[in-house]
């Protein structure tokens, strides 16, 4: 998927004015934020569990080379074929080759954010493979030719009226607005796609090194269908998703659905190991697992490694007051919200996303809910430091920051400058004591007044009081 995060500021203006989007986002907030709050307390000792989860992820990442090889060995022993891909294009090439090898004409796909990184669907279509997205949200987006705006609820930006119009137009059926009826219609259209698909494509929430298994969580059941019915199954995931044991993954599973959708557990958790046996009546004969790097390995051992702990629950975006107001598309790539504001620049080039690390108040709501304790605000701040080192900040901003710091290191000049400054601002504020416009501070005064200073600094007044 092309990275358009350079357009961030322009997109913010558009998204803030989009009434339907704003309505949709308010629903996300109440359902997901409230949903998480309702079930996260079921965990006996949440903090202890988060610490354990972070430790599991850290151990896996600190020994990533070992666990990836152990995984490969176990998966291969059970009949899966493990592929390694450096880039999204490599994934596309590998999947296309697998399709050609097994004479695949149609593929049914469950939700995979990693495949969105690669732009897999376009590559397969070009190679003559018809791809059907089967997650309801992703299916809707495929019909509408749109990108997901949330990693868990991809179609959160659309309301049912828009979906009703879309289904009526594309399915040539009478328009329905009842949500259950819309779901039924999609089910009936997609069922033959599952039954007839030559290849199933899925992501993997985790890879389990101990058993060589791919673990997939779904609610709709499409993840089970695409990994059970077609004769070929391709699972695509990032190299960082490996964890050592079944017990380790179980600890993470206590947190993932609760953090994501406010569920104690997803309807289905599938642990898939190897291919079908000759006597089995279902399951794929060919199981390919593709491990994508796409920049992830560059984080290992560095000051951003903690980002690789991420288990893609989406809690950070659900709780982010910026995401809550602009939605996911404004961020310009696959991953939105706080985790995306870090992943997009670190995977796609820091120079291509100048706004993302800065478009946060560092309020910390994301870090509080992160199930694996990623210090998201600290990582955003580190990216800002890197921007500064790379000279990416505007000359005006750098000058202002340096000037302020210089002044703050020279208390006597600081005292004089602030004393003059507050007198001027008081004058501008006038009788109402409000400043309506201020040169250079339009970002503030376009939407807000600035309450005028009292006219003398605290330190002036304090000194006067002492000498009275």
């Amino acid at each position: 998927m092309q990275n358009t995060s350079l357009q961030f500021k322009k997109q913010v203006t558009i998204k803030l004015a989009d009434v339907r989007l704003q309505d949709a986002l308010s629903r996300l907030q109440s359902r997901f934020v409230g949903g998480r709050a309702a079930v996260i307390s079921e965990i006996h000792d949440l903090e202890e569990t988060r610490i354990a989860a972070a430790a599991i992820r850290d151990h896996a990442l600190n020994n990533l080379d070992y666990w990836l090889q152990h995984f490969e060995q176990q998966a291969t022993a059970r009949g899966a074929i493990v592929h390694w891909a450096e880039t999204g294009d490599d994934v596309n090439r590998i999947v296309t080759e697998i399709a050609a090898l097994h004479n695949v004409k149609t593929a049914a796909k469950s939700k995979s954010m990693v495949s969105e990184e690669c732009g897999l669907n376009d590559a397969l279509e070009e190679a003559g493979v018809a791809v059907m997205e089967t997650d309801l949200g992703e299916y809707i987006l495929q019909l509408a030719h749109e990108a997901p705006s949330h990693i868990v609820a991809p179609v959160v930006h659309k309301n049912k009226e828009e979906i009703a119009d879309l289904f009526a137009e594309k399915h040539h059926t009478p328009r329905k607005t009842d949500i259950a009826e819309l779901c039924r219609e999609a089910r009936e259209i997609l069922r033959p796609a599952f039954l007839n698909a030559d290849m199933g494509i899925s992501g993997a929430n985790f890879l389990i090194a101990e058993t060589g298994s791919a673990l997939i969580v779904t609610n709709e059941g499409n993840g089970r269908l695409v990994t059970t019915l077609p004769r070929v199954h391709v699972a695509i995931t990032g190299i960082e998703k490996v964890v050592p044991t079944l017990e380790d993954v179980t600890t993470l599973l206590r947190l993932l659905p609760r953090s994501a959708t406010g569920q104690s557990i997803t309807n289905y958790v599938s642990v898939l190991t190897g291919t079908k046996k000759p006597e089995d009546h279902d399951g794929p004969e060919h199981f390919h697992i593709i491990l994508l790097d796409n920049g992830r390995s560059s984080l290992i051992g560095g000051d951003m490694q903690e980002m690789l702990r991420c288990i893609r629950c989406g809690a950070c975006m659900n709780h982010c007051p910026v995401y809550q107001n602009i939605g996911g598309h404004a961020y310009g790539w696959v991953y939105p919200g706080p985790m995306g504001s870090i992943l997009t620049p670190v995977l796609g080039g820091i120079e291509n996303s100048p706004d993302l690390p800065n478009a946060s108040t560092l309020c910390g709501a994301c870090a509080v809910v992160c199930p694996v304790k990623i210090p998201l605000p600290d990582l955003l701040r580190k990216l800002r430091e890197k921007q500064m080192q790379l000279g990416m900040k505007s000359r005006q901003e750098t000058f202002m920051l340096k000037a302020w710091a210089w002044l703050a290191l020279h208390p006597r000049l600081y005292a004089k400058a602030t004393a003059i400054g507050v007198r001027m601002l008081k004058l501008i504020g006038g009788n109402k004591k409000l400043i309506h416009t201020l040169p250079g501070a339009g970002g503030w005064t376009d939407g807000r007044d600035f309450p005028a200073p009292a006219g003398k600094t605290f330190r002036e007044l304090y000194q006067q009081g002492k000498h009275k």
Partner: protein
Amino acid sequence: MRVGLFVTCLVDAVRPRIGFATIKLLEAAGCEVTVPAQQTCCGQPGYNAGDRKSAVALARKFLNEFEAFDYVVVPSGSCAGMIRVHYPDVLRDDPALLARITALGQRTYELTDFLTHIAMPENIPGKFKGTLTYHDSCSGLRELNIYNQPRVLLANMADVKISEMVESTTCCGFGGTFSVKYGELSTRMADNKCRHITDTHASAIVGGDLGCLLNIEGRLRRNGDHTTRVLHIAEALSGLDEEAP
């Protein structure tokens, strides 16, 4: 006990009354308050913008000016958080300084945290009468666990009723330079906050960080609300909310 007051650059420049209110509260609680005259800014604007070098210099300056006190009190969760939580990161490359700043950080408190846990005044001199609503500023809440402290103190004032707003812990959109660089977004976040404040019908919105309060007041006034009072917790608790300057 000897308390050094770090008044913060915003309070110093924009609303000095908060500094005097803080002194009044600390003295009423029996503290001996000193205001080091050379103090300026904690360096958070630069630190959060990626200018680590400036933050290092200002952290050292702070250390030299405040290390001698038993306690340092700050009428801002954001600046207190900078000192307690972030200065150790700022000075991480110098083990000697790191040890000193960590120790000083442990003695540095946000005002309401200090009053409830250390100074424990017997009575609160505030005179505020009526209903107020409290906004929980992000740094104080999430870096210093300040939530109950201001509420406990306000509950000591006989004529105060707290009407909690929806999402009192959601960011108001200030975020320092964010409020200017992403003004439109910041304004929308402030707008949401103002809506929740107005819904409580409280006569005052009270908070612990002047930055957030300026943001909230700025949006309230621009929206035509000239009656809801916007007060720092020190003003409300000290009774200095009525008087100039």
